[in-house]
């Protein structure tokens, strides 16, 4: 029974209603705001556990609302967006959004994103040293990766990349973010390295590298580990 409170900031009454019914039937408490202004006030009055923010708000640009929220609000913010706006999505993620989902979305997918965002938010400060994801086990202290209890030999860059993924499991990481974290400032546009390492890593950790279940490509945006 979770009673986590979720704030929905979306100008479309139909979408708000759909989200409210979906979330309430899954034991979340829902607060709604129909504009960016209302949303900022609601969040300040009673900080929720998670915020669902429509990036295409009419009154205040969704990006502006995100920036103002992030000045003091450190819990997960999931962006609702339309497809074909990768640039919007990337800039929201680079400016502190936890995750995004495109309309039209399936409610199952939305609930999964919400759960992993909340879990990620809670674990941010107490990172488990041993992470399990399906058949994979990553020991962040010993820097050892096991698949079905067998040790997987990784190069140091491959390991660093995988460690970054598992620490952010369920969350989409933009190309620029990954490149900066692994290769450092100045490498943000060198996506060719990322392509090669993701392909190598998939060969080592996926059952079927062509149909990966761990490292998922988010076209035009980045990668998501699950």
């Amino acid at each position: 029974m979770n009673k986590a409170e979720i704030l929905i900031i979306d100008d479309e009454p139909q979408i708000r209603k759909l989200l409210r019914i979906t979330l309430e039937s899954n034991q979340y408490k829902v607060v709604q705001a129909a504009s960016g202004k209302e949303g900022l006030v609601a969040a300040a009055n009673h900080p929720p556990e998670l915020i669902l923010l429509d990036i295409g708000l009419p009154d205040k640009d969704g990006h502006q609302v995100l920036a103002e929220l992030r000045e003091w609000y450190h819990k997960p913010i999931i962006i609702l967006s339309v497809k074909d706006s990768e640039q919007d999505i990337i800039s929201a993620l680079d400016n502190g959004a936890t995750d995004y989902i495109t309309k039209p979305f399936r409610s199952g997918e939305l609930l999964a994103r919400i759960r992993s965002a909340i879990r990620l938010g809670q674990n941010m400060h107490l990172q488990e040293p041993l992470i399990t994801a399906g058949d994979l086990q990553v020991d962040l202290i010993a820097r050892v990766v096991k698949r079905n209890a067998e040790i997987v030999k990784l190069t140091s860059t491959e390991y660093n990349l995988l460690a970054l993924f598992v620490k952010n499991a369920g969350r989409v990481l933009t190309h620029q973010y990954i490149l900066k974290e692994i290769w450092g400032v100045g490498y943000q546009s060198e996506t060719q390295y990322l392509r090669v390492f993701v392909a190598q890593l998939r060969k080592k950790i996926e059952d079927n590298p062509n149909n990966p279940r761990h490292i998922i490509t988010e076209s035009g945006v980045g990668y998501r580990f699950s």
Partner: protein
Amino acid sequence: MYEKNLAYRLKTRKPDTSTQYLISLMLIVLVTITCYFLANLIGYREVALVLLLVVSILAMLFDIFPVLTAAVLSALIWNYFFIPPTHTFHVGTPEDVLLFLMYFVIALINIVLTSKIRNFERKARDKEGREKTITLYNTLINSLSHELRTPISTIVGAVDTIRENDTKLSEEDKAELINEIEIAGFRLNRQVENLLNMSRLEAGVLQPKLDWCDVNELMHTVIRNYRDSATDYKIYFEQNENLPLFKIDRGLIEQALNNILHNALHYTPKGSSIELRVFQSDSGCVFSISDNGKGISESDAAFIFDKFYRGARFSTGGSGLGLSIAKGFTEAHNGTIRLKNKKAGGAEFIIELPAKSMFVTDDELKDEQG
């Protein structure tokens, strides 16, 4: 079809007015000189007939004013050079005065009648052109409204049935109706996406965002997109291990390949095989999607990439936008898309993209065994 008609009209359009004057004058002068030397053989009255003939021919080809000018000029020339006494405008006999006036009247009637007939023809042609445009527009609106209204009807109808007959419906029926609503929703979404993409292309605002792409992975993604709808088909893709990375807009090319694969699934019978291939060319990379269906008739092949065009054999389904979007996205990369009927049967769509490529060497990766 309308465009063809337009092209035809452009080709047969009359020369501009000054050229018409020039040609008329030259023709009259030429005929006059010829007749001048022949005037001894043919009488001067017959010269009038020859000149009348020239004016009549001009009336069939040119506008009314150049022809009128030619008529007046030829009458004066005839009078001056041919009616005795020659080299004066004086007309000797009453017979010749009558002839001269008749010449004028006949030329005028000729000109006016021809011009009337031509006007009438032009109006008929314009009307035909307009009717063709209207027919095309109606076909297009019909196919679009069909594509949009069918899923909407499904949604509204299914919801109504569930609400009205809640107690009478079996759980199975209810689940099936809900499933139909879902399919309709995604179909609607697909059509809206197509229309948005089309308007992006039409507006000319499409700028490919080029980035390094692992094309093998791209192909697997395209196949995965259709995993659920392709269960009755055999899809083959052999990964090409010796490919470099290519600098392309992954999103646009994924959409183009999606649309071609969607078409292949839609227009070939269940159980068909579809093969995807990707390889390197001199200037970039080549994608190919082929099937073992019936192939595409020559009359369809000529128009298959045209907006709103749908194959003659197929009466329903499809907005006729998918392949024209694939073409638009390919061309936004300065690439080409073409269709080929395979000798063994079936159709093959080939996208060729000029693109930068690179192999990342181990050396460059500066990586060490951990």
